[in-house]
């Protein structure tokens, strides 16, 4: 149990300005962007791996739970301390430790913000591709712990594809290095892969070796309008089968189109039943070929199709798209976007069917569900807005979310394609993972026998 003496001990480790037990501060660390709540007993901002290790050793010795937090932008309660204890705010460990472009990699601390990393890489002609909607504020540590991705994952994959190695503080405070600076290594179990997406339940990430890519020379954005989302879904399946790999493939339904137009009126998207945004990047010739192929493939399905006129229009549409999730709240002053049941993924072929099912669920519960997301990898974000003060709305919301989750699982899909399990989706893990969950539980027991690391998450 935490007591005054232990707090004092930890204060000495990190310095008094990096530890808070103020009730105001604790309240501010009691949530992320999900509906999960849990108030920590102390918030600590470590500045080094050694400090993290010292803190964890105390926590381990005294059975105190430890929950790591990056920017707190998660949508599953992953960084919410369900059992109180310590929240480790990693955002102050935000240095780029090494830039090693000859080896196509950088070494970073977990607190660095995605956009800041990319701003630092840009002058050298490199970038870190995973780009969630929260890239302006989310940290690399959070991205790694949740294996986050975003709009470019259809071509560039998820964060996992870019983590070559990690420095991790284990549950007993031991500092371990996984992976290496090599592009390939088969030495031993891939502990790096185990840690990526483990949501702080197996260890605390304190450093990462990150692979970077050369910035493509050219890119182009295509807007394709459709009469309904299902037709758009069909077009996606056709495009992906045609051999072209777009660097983004996003769907916006009619409500999201309105939300984006409200957030930034200069964008002025056509008011179609659905819009697909394709991006193609590469050399000038590759981009030209990709654009032609996509336009040709969408013919017959799309009601209108055009390419963005310039870089400015491209940047504006992506900036607005990134914020679409929260911008839904702008459609009705009485309602607020609530992130529940918002991250399902289905096999690509099932996309049109899933879109139809979401529409049916929306009608059944009489609850508008706005669909957008990375349709190119079968990842749909279903956005629901409710009157936060209506119990009936909350009931409908939770029931609809449950139905969406179960529908996705029944199609061989997943309840969470990129946002994470946290505690928002942990109840579905048995249904989704079957006896594989027992293996996860066994791993958790082996690495964190006292269960102090982010307890109550991921169904373990």
């Amino acid at each position, binding site marked *: 149990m935490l007591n005054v003496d232990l707090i004092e001990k930890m204060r000495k480790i990190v310095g008094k300005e990096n530890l808070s037990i103020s009730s105001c501060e604790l309240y501010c660390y009691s949530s992320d*962007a999900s509906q999960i709540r849990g108030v920590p007993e102390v918030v600590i901002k470590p500045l080094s791996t050694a400090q993290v290790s010292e803190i964890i050793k105390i926590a381990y010795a005294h059975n105190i739970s430890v929950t790591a937090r990056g920017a707190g932008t998660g949508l599953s309660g992953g960084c919410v301390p369900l059992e109180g204890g310590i929240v480790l705010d990693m955002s102050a460990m935000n240095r780029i430790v090494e830039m090693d472009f000859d080896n196509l990699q950088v070494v970073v601390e977990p607190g660095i913000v995605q956009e800041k990393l990319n701003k630092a890489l840009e002058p050298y002609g490199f970038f870190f591709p995973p780009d969630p909607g929260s890239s302006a*504020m989310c940290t690399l540590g959070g991205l790694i712990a949740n294996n986050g991705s975003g709009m470019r994952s259809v071509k560039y994959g998820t964060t996992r594809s870019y983590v070559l190695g990690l420095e991790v503080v284990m549950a007993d405070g031991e500092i371990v290095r996984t992976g290496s600076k090599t592009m390939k290594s088969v030495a031993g179990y891939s502990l790096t892969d185990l840690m990526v997406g483990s949501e702080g339940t197996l260890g605390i990430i304190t450093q990462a070796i990150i692979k970077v890519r050369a910035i493509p020379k050219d890119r182009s954005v295509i807007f394709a309008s459709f009469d309904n989302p299902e037709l758009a879904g069909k077009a996606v399946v056709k495009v992906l089968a045609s051999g072209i790999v777009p660097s983004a493939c996003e769907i916006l339904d009619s409500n999201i189109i309105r939300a984006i137009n409200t957030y930034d009126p200069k964008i002025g998207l056509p008011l179609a039943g659905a819009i697909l945004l394709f991006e193609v990047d590469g050399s000038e010739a590759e981009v030209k070929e990709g654009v032609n192929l996509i336009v040709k493939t969408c013919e017959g399905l799309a009601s209108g199709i055009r390419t963005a006129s310039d870089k400015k229009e491209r940047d504006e549409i992506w900036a607005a798209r990134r914020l679409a999730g929260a911008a839904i709240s702008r459609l009705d002053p009485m309602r607020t976007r609530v992130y529940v049941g918002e991250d399902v993924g289905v096999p690509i072929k099932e996309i049109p069917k899933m879109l139809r099912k979401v529409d049916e669920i929306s009608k059944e519960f009489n609850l508008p569900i706005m669909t957008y997301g990375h349709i190119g990898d079968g990842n749909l974000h279903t956005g629901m807005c409710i009157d936060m003060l209506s119990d009936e709305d909350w009931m409908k919301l939770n029931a609809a979310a449950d139905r969406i989750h179960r529908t996705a699982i029944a199609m061989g899909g997943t309840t969470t394609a990129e946002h994470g399990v946290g505690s928002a989706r942990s109840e579905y893990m048995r249904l989704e993972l079957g006896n594989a969950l027992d293996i996860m539980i066994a791993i958790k027991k082996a690495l964190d026998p006292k269960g102090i690391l982010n307890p109550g998450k991921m169904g373990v």
Partner: protein
Amino acid sequence: MSNLDLRSILKCVRCGTCRSVCPIFEQTGWESASSRGRMLVAHGIYHGLEADQDVLNSLNTCTTCGLCEQMCPSGASPTQIVQNARHHLVLKGKMTDSQAALRDEATSKGNPLGETRYRHAWLKNASDIKEHAPYVFFVGCLGSYRYPELTRRTFDLLKKFDVTLIPEEVCCGSPLLRTGSDPDFLISKNLEQIKKIGAHTIITGCAGCYTTLRNDYPDGLKVLHVSEFLAERLSEMNLKRLDIKVTYHDPCHLGRCNGVFDAPRKIITSICELKEMKTHHQQSRCCGAGGGVLKGYPDLSLALSKKRLEEIPEGVDYLVTSCPLCRTNLQRGGPKVEVIDILDLLEMAMK
């Protein structure tokens, strides 16, 4: 709870976009100093979170610069909620010493600076105050007491255009409104006199006065910043072109909050070359002084000023602004070039 509307608080989806723009959060790195944190604190107060010193610090370190609101995807209004939460607590007697000092000085002396001198002491000729006029120059507290020379020169220019003064002007109320106190008595005192004068338009040179006169005074009065008023009269002023380069700081309460971007730039570009700061127009960084932060948290305010000064482009001769509070705080930050008011620049071109 009347002034803390739960539904407005719940408009925040806690996405954290404000973490990427809040200049105070950038300084401290603690959640309670971000707009999202302050929205949570307001929510907490609604549900009975005890308003201790940390709660007061969270709410009162907001400069009300409005950048978070500008960027907020979900359409929340953190600046308004911060002000409402401050007001809510002040009504219960909970405030910082600096909030209390601002309120007490403004209440007893008609200005938050604690000045007891005659407000228009800068005025050479008492007869320049006319009983009736279509335009009134609202000087503001900083103009009256901290920048009397600038004020005299501004008024010398304005009075040619049928502009008078409010004989017994008092603080516009901005410092009280921003920090949660009740400014009604100040507003009434100014309004009564404006009505007597019969003016249809109020002109002011301060961004804080501007936003207050425009948004917190009853409708029906037209409010112009000095730069807006003069930008329309440049042809009558015989300006000569200056061979200098300047940059311009958009005061938050003039630019982002009220959309006055073009008039100051029109004046500048008609005189000399303008090179924009790294962030400008809607995205401008705050100077760090507003919302009671300069008075209540001078160190934090100074840190923000220094950050803003880092955005001055290379090769400029002056940093021009159009608000005496911004000017004061930018000056505190130790600028590499002189900080001047837009009126100063105008005068250079008139000589």
